[in-house]
């Protein structure tokens, strides 16, 4: 099916790969269906694009791709809501925030991971409790000199 998006124009998506969010992305209760869109030069980022709201999309990534150690537990309640039977069916990623002023200050939301059961495409934004993970964890250390600049 064809969906309209603000960032990528009109794109074709496979209906079998649409995630049904059983709990919303917090602040975006109106969007229940999302797809992952590949748009860029590498495998570090994807976009989580709302199917029914062209303007709603979030860049997402995985902490492991930035060598950030990360682990969390999913309460039984949510395991049940998602119908998760096996850890192999679990796809998790995190929303990234890139400030307009300086991409070096980009952060990843480790406090509210997105979890998807790829077996039935049910997903949600989990809210972790009892953890020190932050909603805005820096992707790069604050020391700017430690970032290796790479040309386009």
């Amino acid at each position: 099916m064809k969906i309209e998006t603000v960032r990528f124009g009109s794109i074709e998506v496979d209906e079998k790969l649409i995630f049904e969010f059983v709990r919303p992305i917090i602040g975006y209760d109106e969007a229940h269906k999302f797809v992952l869109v590949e748009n860029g030069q590498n495998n570090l980022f994807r976009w989580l694009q709302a199917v029914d709201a062209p303007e709603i999309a979030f860049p997402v990534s995985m902490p492991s791709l930035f060598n950030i150690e990360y682990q969390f537990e999913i309460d039984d309640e949510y395991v049940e809501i998602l119908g998760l039977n096996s850890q192999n069916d679990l796809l998790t990623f995190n929303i990234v925030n890139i400030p307009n002023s300086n991409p070096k200050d980009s952060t990843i939301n480790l406090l509210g991971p997105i979890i998807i059961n790829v077996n039935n495409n049910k997903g949600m934004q989990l809210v972790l409790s009892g953890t020190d993970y932050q909603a805005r964890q820096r992707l790069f250390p604050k020391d700017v000199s430690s970032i290796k600049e790479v040309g386009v």
Partner: protein
Amino acid sequence: MLVLSRKNGQKIIINEDIEILVIECSQNIVKLGISAPRDVKVYREEVYREIKYANIKSNETTSELVSQLENLIPKENKTEDAKSVQWNKKTKIIKKKND
């Protein structure tokens, strides 16, 4: 705002299907037990606000900003096939249509 006083072990009932139990109240901490139907979302306020703020900021991101961020990342991080495997785990990824 409705203000209620409750003792340890007493409850508040909201809408007939939400129960809030004062498990323990001492010094500066109130421990509450909340029983609610599944579709009722319960969050700690500050956590809810933090995540909501991060989500809203993220939704303001443009493709250009993602490109700028990508350019900050060392090349060796970009090319590993293993990284795409993590994404592709069972789901195929939808590619942007070139037209």
